[in-house]
């Protein structure tokens, strides 16, 4: 599904990625780990085409992401569900509306929204929070909203950038259980984390980065 072929990226004099090559297959659950500044987020941003490589290729389902035109970028992103460390929820919209936005963005017919929102909120355990605003939720619940928004469009790939970074251990475990559940349903998950406890508790593939290089795969 995802292929990095000798990818290099620099931000000024800082080398974010240096000759990265990796492959992620359909249905895999992959951890990207490493200390801060190792290049984990840059890898995710490249898949999202938020950042372009200086050299090398990033392929999503065989298509070179760098060759996608600006107009096609939204359609590339609509195939992915993204979960952020800082949740990135819309604070002026309710939980249900935050999830609906993803459906609207992906041009899903409005008569399907209610059913899909209900289903996904039930999946993440937020059925009774649908009408609440983000300011009325805890950190764990906000992350669940972010996850629900990512899942509702039924994406092929889930990109999670430190989804447990701002959460306590127990809440983080809850989020991990959800990501495991999603993965078991056949979705590919790439999760950037430096949470060693989470990685140790799981049996999934780990790609460790340091100073922009892969040191373990």
């Amino acid at each position, binding site marked *: 599904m995802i292929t990095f072929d000798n990818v290099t990226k620099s931000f000024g004099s800082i080398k974010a990625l240096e000759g990265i090559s990796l492959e992620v297959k359909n249905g895999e659950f992959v951890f990207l780990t490493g200390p801060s500044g190792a290049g984990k987020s840059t890898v995710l941003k490249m898949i999202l085409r938020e950042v372009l490589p200086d050299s090398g290729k990033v392929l999503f389902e065989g298509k070179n992401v760098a060759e996608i035109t600006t107009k096609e970028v939204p359609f590339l992103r*609509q195939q992915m569900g993204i979960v952020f460390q800082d949740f990135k929820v819309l604070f002026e919209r309710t939980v249900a509306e935050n999830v609906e936005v993803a459906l609207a963005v992906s041009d899903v017919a409005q008569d399907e929204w209610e059913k899909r929102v209900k289903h996904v909120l039930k999946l993440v355990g937020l059925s009774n929070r649908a009408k609440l605003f983000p300011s009325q939720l805890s950190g764990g619940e906000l992350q669940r909203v972010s996850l629900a928004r990512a899942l509702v469009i039924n994406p092929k790939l889930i990109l999670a950038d430190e989804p447990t970074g701002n959460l306590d251990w127990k809440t983080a475990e809850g989020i991990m259980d959800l990501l495991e559940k999603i993965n078991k349903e056949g979705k590919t998950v790439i999760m950037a984390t430096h949470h060693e406890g989470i990685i140790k508790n799981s049996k999934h593939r780990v790609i460790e980065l340091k100073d922009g290089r892969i040191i373990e795969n």
Partner: protein
Amino acid sequence: MSIHTKTAIEAIKRSPFQAVSAIFVLALTFFVATTVSILVYSSSKALSYFETRPQIISFLKSETGSDAITALQNKLALDARVKDVKYVPKEEALEIYKKATEDNPLLAELVSPSIFPASLEFSVTDLKLAEEVINEIKNEAIVEQVGFTANIGGEKSLSDVVSRLKTISYYLRVGGIVFVGALAITSFLVLLVIISMRMTSRKGEIEILSLIGATPAFIRSPIVLEGVFYSLIGVISGWTLSFIFWLYVSPSLLSYFGSIPVLPKEPLSFFLLFAAILGTEIVIGFTIAITGSLIAVKRSLKKAR
């Protein structure tokens, strides 16, 4: 309700003062635009009235026989430069006089039909031909005198009247266009500033939407809709105020100008005139709103990238 309409309405509710400022400026612009349009309409109607109504009256010598009158009438009717030829006998002239002096019946009693000359009234197809035709008719043996029914502001000839009206009409048009143009530019800039402010306040939301795959059209739709709302409300408010104003002053104006059709006398025509102005203003308002919003969105998205 679509998600974009909902977002636009929520944005208006969140910043009511920005919304009021935009609507106020747009309403003022379209109030002035409607008023100027009516003034231009009135001046052009007055101009066309004086240009085309039967203004030339050739008073006939009292001893003229009916054969000679008929001969001149037929001659005029066959003249391509002349239209609407009408013979007014002495009796009818007296009736016109009586009607004009009905406030003072004594004046009517003092006169007899014999002192009013019969006349041939007509107009010309083009005002430029008036003097030429008048000079020709003056030379007719049965014509005593030639006069004009139009005479405002002490002008001595028809061309003076028309030239004065043309000047008024020209200044109204140019002044109106300049004034309305300046107001339209102000409205456009106010919209641009307000939409730019809205974009800045929605920066975080735009970033999130872009990351989850929103197209630029999806991002800009609620913002453009907001501009369209402002514009629509502004156009309707400004037009309504002007409409009420003209509705209020029209009886006095119509009575003051008498037979000069400065405003339509028929209610339906009056409403149709205003409806046409409203339609045009809606198109202009939409153009201002959509152009202003798109420019503001484009600039803000460019900065965000």
